[in-house]
């Protein structure tokens, strides 16, 4: 993933101004802010509230409702690992246990500027699980080696090819 720019209120205002005329502009604005900065800085709350003519509490409440929006920057590599039923049936919990034991990596704990691992529920790859979305690219048929490699910034494409070679 490309490095995200630091918080910049001027850029944030430009984004909000560009999108505010949309009907139901809130989610498009929040996605655009997160795409730009890698997170939605709490400093964006008053900017959004003023532009949409809502209270700061309403703006904050909306942001915090959705799992997607982060309040702090993510790592350069973002691994969203599926832990829903179809991936459970293919052993995703055992896989995570193994990765935890071997590499000390767990989802949903604060990472560093290199790595963020998040739980998601279903990536729509239920016939080829366990799956993860790595920097926006889908990887199927994960095993512990490949997941650890991906967490260490390994090549997504290599992991996809290796998944395809898993019979």
């Amino acid at each position, binding site marked *: 993933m490309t490095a995200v720019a630091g918080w910049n209120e001027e850029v944030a205002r430009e984004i909000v101004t560009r999108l505010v005329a949309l*009907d*139901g*502009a*809130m*989610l*498009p604005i*929040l*996605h655009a802010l997160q795409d730009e900065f890698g997170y939605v800085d709490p400093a964006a709350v008053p900017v959004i509230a003023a532009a*949409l003519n809502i209270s700061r509490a*309403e703006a904050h*409440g*909306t942001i915090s*409702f*959705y*799992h*997607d*929006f982060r309040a702090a920057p993510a790592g350069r590599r973002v691994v*969203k690992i599926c832990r*829903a*039923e*179809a*991936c*459970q*049936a*293919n052993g995703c919990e055992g896989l995570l246990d193994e990765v935890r034991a071997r590499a000390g990596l767990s989802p949903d704990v604060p990472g560093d500027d290199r790595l963020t691992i998040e739980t*998601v*529920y*279903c*990536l*729509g*790859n*239920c*016939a*080829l*699980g366990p*799956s993860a*979305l790595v920097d*926006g*690219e*889908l*990887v*199927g*048929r994960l095993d512990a080696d490949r997941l650890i490699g991906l967490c260490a910034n390994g090549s997504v*494409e290599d992991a*996809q*090819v*290796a*998944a*395809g*070679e898993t*019979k």
Partner: protein
Amino acid sequence: MSVRIFIPKDAAALSVGAESVARRIAEEAMSRGSAVEIVRTGSRGILWLEPLVEVETSIGRCAYGPVAPRDVAGLFDAGFLTGGAHALAHGAVETMDWMIRQNRVTFARVGAIDPVSLDDFRAHGGLAGLERAIAMRGADIVDSLQASGLRGRGGAGFPTWIKWRTALEASADQKYIVCNADEGDSGTFADRMLMEGDPFLLIEGMAIAGLAVGATRGFIYIRSEYPHAFRTMSDAIGVAEKAGVLGGSVLGSGRAFRLEARLGAGAYICGEETSLLESLEGKRGVVRAKPPIPALQGLFGKPTVINNVLSLAAVPSILADSAQAYAEYGVARSRGTLPFQIGGNVKRGGLVELAFGATLRELIEGFGGGTRSGRPIRAVQVGGPLGAYLPANQLDTPLDYEAFAAIGAMLGHGGIVVFDDSVDMAKQARFAFEFCAKESCGKCTPCRIGAVRGVETLDRIVAGVEREKNFAVLDDLNKVMTDASLCAMGGLTPMPVMSALRHFPEDFRRPPQRQAAE
């Protein structure tokens, strides 16, 4: 003349290396001086054979899969450009057993065409339904829908035509069509595959809905876990606008219909229709009490038809080929076809579109080939995280809405997740509550509090603490959640729990395990 090679760019195919395979084939063709044209398509849904490469030959499109980059040179050596024999060859894709046993209506084009080529779409029968709709009165379109028997494919199975008629008869200065593409149920991926493989079909269905009820604007709410579908859908909307399929005058009819794709933000509850509308409006995705129903007061308080991707995508063929033709598929009050999705621990997972009435066994054993692990099937969850867990002795249940309701289960969105005998059903039941606790919108008490209490109660049961008393608490909790929750999230969470308890009681009565010393 160059040989046409079809390689999916469906996210599932990409997840097992389709991009590298496409590049490797292009390089190999270049180095051998072979003239090829690579067309990127959706997936046929034969997911266990992905990446599945098809080559256009005189005997049809010959399929090879699963192809890895290291196989490519060998495929060229074997003459795959002319359909040559190879260990990965499956013959013409249209004659493969997996394909000929299906009733591909909604998914007829998925995997066959370039998803964002409007010419391809038209050449394969696209827009015929919309053209017919333009010449019809709104009420007649709704009548066709009624005659087809189409019921909501999102899971609830509510007759689609009733929503449409209600919105048609409402008078307002603005009406909306909203497509629910927040396909959050685990084990389902049909909406994703359709949006990535045949986005114009959904656009056509929504435009028909707009003409039918007098709505000039539409939104497709796509979950953020589907970035590929969002991109393909957005590209297709752009193409459709340029070509005049969407815009101020749909196909020159003088009637407007404009469409926007919007991205969700990781909230499962936003698949519930009123919560989705709140989210589209830019608010917390909190469920609304009904009435008022969305068909009368929906998006921004205006009359709104809100349907699932598969419901809207079924509409064009109903108009193009007649409602009767669609209704001939299926059984009893479940008419037409449902794209089933087979996933989890299964040997041959993928998408199988069938008329209602086949059995679960035909899908899981006939198509799926049993478990991937090779162990016996113990449980099958049908209909997503709110669907029942069924034991192996219920596999002969016919796949129709009423037959499933009769055994305390539901078809939902057609997702089927297979588990082998290593599954711990007490864990699965606990997960159902845990998921509800995490994803509840928090508006109603039975769901918000009940899910948390459910996790605690199951933990006590598993730990062997006052088991009989806690079974009574669990039973009570399930009744309250079922009867008193505002929407299906809280109302149906007891379904996986109670079905696990009913069919697999031994998993809840094991001797308690001592906590392992740290």
